[in-house]
């Protein structure tokens, strides 16, 4: 595909992986270079519109795959094979939906965020519109965006103790109740 080639040409070694489902092209880049990659894509390839950005928690997916593998492993162990422990891939993903307004092509950029290092560089310098999506991503997954002007919970209240879209958060909630403390400037935001 032509888009894939041109992305590969611009990003070079920074493009770690490509995958494509039903015409949606996803490119994975290293977390440290995300803003550099987005700048390259914006300036060189004309992906000048940020549709949205959001997080994904992959922990349940890995768990499932591990179980499947274990099952297979047990079967093969009976046949004399051995199971190899693979390192767990990073838990979170952040996906940027980019759009080229000239050619109407769409490109999805993906970074993987490990649980022990949840800091990602903010894209608000490139697009002002990244402001609320990044706040929501922090709210729902706890991913912190370095350089964001005001990283504060967006949908949940400031004192909310958890990150609700993580897979280990139960659907029915954990019984949090909002205590109405009158504090005009809450401490709930991360700086």
């Amino acid at each position, binding site marked *: 595909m032509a888009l894939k080639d041109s992305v590969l040409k611009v990003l070079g070694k920074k493009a770690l992986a490509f995958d494509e489902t039903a015409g949606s092209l996803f490119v994975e880049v290293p977390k440290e270079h995300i803003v550099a990659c987005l700048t390259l894509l914006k300036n060189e390839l004309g992906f000048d519109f940020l549709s*949205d950005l959001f997080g994904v928690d992959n922990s349940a*997916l890995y768990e499932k795959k591990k179980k499947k593998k274990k099952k297979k492993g047990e079967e093969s162990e009976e046949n004399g094979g051995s199971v190899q422990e693979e390192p767990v891939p990073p838990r979170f993903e952040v996906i940027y939906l980019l759009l080229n*307004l000239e050619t*109407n092509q769409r490109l999805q950029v993906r970074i993987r965020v490990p649980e022990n290092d949840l800091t990602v560089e903010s894209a608000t310098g490139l697009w002002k519109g990244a402001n609320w999506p990044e706040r929501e991503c922090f709210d729902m997954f706890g991913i912190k965006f370095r350089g964001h002007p005001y990283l504060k919970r*967006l949908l949940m209240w400031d004192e909310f103790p958890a990150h609700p879209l993580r897979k280990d*958060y139960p659907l029915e909630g954990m019984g949090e109740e909002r205590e109405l403390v009158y504090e005009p400037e809450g401490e709930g935001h991360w700086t």
Partner: protein
Amino acid sequence: MGPVKQRIANEDYVTINVGPSHPAMHGTLRAIAYVSGETVLGTDLEIGYLHRGVEKLGENLTYHQFIPITDRLNYCSAIANNVSYEMAVEKLMGLEVPEKAQLIRIIMTELSRIADHIVLVGILGVDLGAFTPFFYLFIQREEIYEIFEWYNGARLTNTFGRIGGVEAPLPEDFEERWSKLKKGLDKAIGETDKLLTHNRIWMDRTIGVTPISADDALNWGFTGPCLRACGVKRDLRKDEPYSLYHQFDFEIPTGKHGDVFDRYMVRMIEMRESVKIIDQAFAMYKELGPDEPLMAKVPKIIRPPEGEVYHAIESPNGELGFYIKSDGTDKPYRIKIRPPCYMIFQAFDELIQGEMISDLIACLSSLNIIAGELDR
């Protein structure tokens, strides 16, 4: 201290709290306005009052069960949400929807676009003190809702369509109803146009109020009528034609300054364009026989292959997209909704700086912020 308060720290201002339950706020939105005299220096926005965890719910429901939840996003045009979600799942599964079903979808989506624009123009008038157009338009909206009710039993939360097609053909006397509605719409839009567009008071209240340049609008992620009001000719129906939209002949209206008047005018013209599309779609529909299929071949339990997909349609408000990640089971692994007014509303502080407090309401109305879609 937030960036808005930091910016105005040296100014002398009074804090005015608008919302979350205020008759002029659209749903439960809250804007904390810092005003000096009657001039707004800045606003802090608080959203999330209507947050129901739709995305979390989606992860725990099957693909079919999520359709009624999408009704509750933008409740002014529920059908557009349904269609957008269904199309995303169909794209993930690689389903080909029959032509007849696509035409019914187009007709219903365009009807809901008219209904949505009617709400906006009517309420914008009410917010600015022009009450009469509201009645002229809402009688026709009622007629549209009758058609919805008569098609699938619900008026507001339609749960329209199925994954892979639609549930029923258009009822037999659709043509009669539509020709009656068309006349009524034409009259109501014409009357509203006469009452408002060249009205001195209306022009004073809307022209030049809260303008935004095309570059800024694109940087903020504007889509839909609010972007077209800035002069950017962008409509997913033309630019990334989905369904059968490439076969229809219609115009994309654009404004110039991106102010409240242009946003109003773009929507007024779009209503007439939607009427044109419905006429063409219904003519195509009539040519198809009664035995044409309405559903693609869909398994009883939907288990899309592993993968992820993003699909967007042009909803009345702008680009409404669904990102769906499937892990091969009967429930989606992750659903992300890209609501159009979410990206638009975050620019509100920039739009409203230096305007009068009464323009805050006008601006908010013209952006068409729907809390259900904003907070999800």
